[in-house]
C-alpha cells in the first residue's frame, strides 16, 4: 500500500507537518463497519512517471511538488513534508475530513468515482464545494499531471452546522 510504504520512508518528525509514524501499525478495527478501508493501492512507479501537483495553501501560497502514480494526495503531502496545518488527522482512514481539498472543474471530473463513505465524510468538511474531494482518497495518475489542489480556508466561526 502506497501510504504504508510512504510511512516507512518517513523518518523525521518535523512539527511543520506531522508525519505518520504509527500509522503503518494502525489496526483497522473499524473495517467491520464500512466493510472497506480506503488506503490507496499503487505500484512502485518509475522516476520518469512523476506527476506534478500544485497545492494552494490556506495563506494562498502555492507549493509545487511531485508525486508518483498510485499515491494519494495525502501520501504526497506526507512524503513531501508539506506544511498544511492539521491535514490528514485520521491518517487516511476516512474518519476526519481534514484532508479536504478543492479542485478545478475539469480536474475534478477526471478524479474518478466518489464512494459513499468518502461522500459521508466530505459532507462534514468545512467549506464544502461541488468540486471538493478528500485528499486521502484521490490517487495520482499521469493524466492528472499539473493538477491544482486548493486547501480550503478554515472558517472563523467553528459552529458551522450540517446544513452549512
Amino acid at each position, binding site marked *: 500500500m502506497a501510504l504504508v510504504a510512504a510511512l516507512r520512508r518517513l523518518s523525521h518528525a518535523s512539527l511543520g507537518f506531522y508525519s505518520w*509514524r504509527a*500509522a503503518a501499525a494502525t489496526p483497522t478495527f473499524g473495517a467491520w463497519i464500512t466493510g472497506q478501508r480506503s488506503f490507496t493501492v499503487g505500484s512502485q512507479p518509475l522516476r520518469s512517471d512523476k506527476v506534478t501537483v500544485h497545492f494552494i495553501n490556506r495563506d494562498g501560497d502555492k507549493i509545487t511538488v511531485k508525486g508518483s502514480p498510485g499515491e494519494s494526495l495525502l501520501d504526497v503531502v506526507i512524503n513531501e513534508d508539506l506544511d498544511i496545518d492539521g491535514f490528514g488527522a485520521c491518517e487516511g482512514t476516512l474518519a476526519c475530513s*481534514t484532508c479536504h481539498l478543492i479542485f478545478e472543474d475539469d480536474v475534478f471530473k477526471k478524479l474518478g468515482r466518489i464512494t459513499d463513505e468518502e461522500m459521508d465524510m466530505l*459532507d462534514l*468538511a468545512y467549506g*464544502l464545494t461541488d468540486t471538493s474531494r478528500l485528499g486521502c482518497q484521490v490517487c495520482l495518475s499521469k493524466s492528472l499531471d499539473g493538477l491544482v489542489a486548493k486547501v480550503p480556508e478554515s472558517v472563523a466561526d467553528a*459552529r458551522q452546522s450540517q*446544513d452549512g
Partner: protein
Amino acid sequence: MIGQKLLFSGLRTSASRWINRLNEGETFLTHVSFKKVTGIRIQFKIDSKYVLGNFYCINGRGQASFSSCSPKVCIVGSGPAGFYTAHHVIKARQDAEVDIYERLPVPFGLVRFGVAPDHPEVKNVINTFTQTAKHSRCNFYGNINVGKDVSVEELQQAYHAVVLSYGAEDNRKMGIPGEDLAGVYSAKDFVGWYNGLPSCQKLNPDLSCDTAVILGQGNVALDVARILLSPINILKKTDITQPALEALEKSQVRRVLIVGRRGPIQIACTIKELREMAKLPGTRPEMLAADFDGITEALKNVPRPRKRLTELLLKTALEVPNEEEQERRSKASRVWAFQFFRSPVEVLAIKYTGVKSNLKQLEFFHVSASVLTGELEDVPCGLIISSIGYKSTLIDPSVPFDSHKAIVPNINGRVQQVAGLYCSGWLKTGPTGVIATTMNNSFDTAKSLLDDMASGTVDLSASKAGFHSITGLLEKRGVKPVLFSDWEKIDSVETSKGEAIGKPREKILTVQEMLQVVHK
C-alpha cells in the same frame, strides 16, 4: 406498523396513575413521559456572534511593547483543543514555549475518554498530538487540576498568556422530574464508564432489561446505541474496558430506541454514523412509518449533506430491503429504532408488583397532528440514557463564564474583559463539533493570541518564569505533576496489557494505579 405494536401494546396509560404509585417501595418500574409533538421545529444553534463591544486595553507601550523575551504560553486541558492550539502557537513563533496542564495523569481528553472504542481510526490523531507534546518547546504537565491545585490567576502571573481548553466535563440535564432515578444515566457517564474514565468506574449500569431508551439523537447517542447492540466479539477487539466488556457480555438489552424531540430532517447525528447503524451486524432497524410522513417532499430544497443523510434514513426506515439485506435482518437478534417528535416530560419509578424488578417503563405524551393533546405513550424499558449534550463548567471563579450558554464568553477565542486569557475547543463554542471542528476553532484562537503578541496587546516585555514559578506552589500543595514521558510509561503498560488479550490497549482505570505506574 409492527414496531408500534411491539412497543406500545397494552401499555397506554396516563401519567398520573403512575405518579400516584410512586415511592411505595417494593418492586419498581421506571418510565419516562414524552410530549409527542408534530411539526414543531426548535432552533438551538448557539449564537456565535456574541458581540459585547471592545474590551481590550492596548498596553501603554503599544506596538513597541513586545521585547525579545520568549513568550510563555499556558494551556489548560490536553484534549484536541489544547493540542491544536499548542501546535499552532509553537509552529508560528519559533521563540514560544507552551506548557499544557491536564487534570488527569493521561492526555488527549475525549479522544481517549469519548471517542468510541470501535472507532480506532479516529484516535490516529493521537500520533499528531504526541509529536506536539514531544516538541522541545512543549511540555505536558498532567495530574494538575487547574482551579484546585493551581488557580487561573496564578497561571496568569506565571505566563504571558493562558488558554483555557478544558472542554465540557458535565452534561445537560433534561430538567424533568425523575431524571435522577436509578436506571437513568447520562451518556457522559455511560461513555466514561465503557471508555475507562476513572470518575465513572463505579457506574455499574444495570443491563438486565430488554429495552433501553436513549434520549437525544446525536452521534453520542449512536455511539451508546452501538456499544449496547454490537456483537461482543467485535467489542472484544477494541480498547473498551474489561469490566464494561464483561457487563455487556451479560447484557440482556435487545432493543434500543433512540428518541428525538424533532423530526427526521433535524436529526443531529451524521451520515457516517447512521450508515454504521444500518450495517451493524446482528441488528435490524424497526422504525415508525408515520414519523416520516411528508419527508420526501420536504427534502427538495435542503443542502446536499442534509439531503443525503435524510435519504439514507428514509431508505433504512421504509424501503423494502433487497434479498441479502432481508436475510441479514431476519437473522438479527437485536433491534434498534429512531423515534421522532417525542419530548421527554417525566421519568417515573412506579410500583409494579408481580413482575421482574428490573422491568421498567417509559411513557409518552401523545399528540395528534401538530396540536398538543397531552396524551401519553408508554414503552416499557429498563434503562434510560440521556444523551442530550455535554456541558462546560466553571473551574475557577476568576474566569468569566456565561452560565446560560455554559461557555466562556469570547470573541475569536479572546476571553472578554481579561487581557491575556483565551479559550478554545468545546469550552469556547459549546459541546458540538467533531475533532476537525475543534481543530479549526483552536487554530482560530491561536491566531488571535499570535496577533495579540505581535501587536503588543499581550505584553511580552517582562520575562515570565512559566512552570518554574508554578512548580514550587505545586510542591507546597503536595501535587506531583506527571510528565509526557510518564504518560508513555502508562501507555506502554496499557498497550502490553491489551496485547496479551488481543486488544489494542487495556486502560488503567484509577488515577491511583496510573500514578503507581509512573512512580514505580
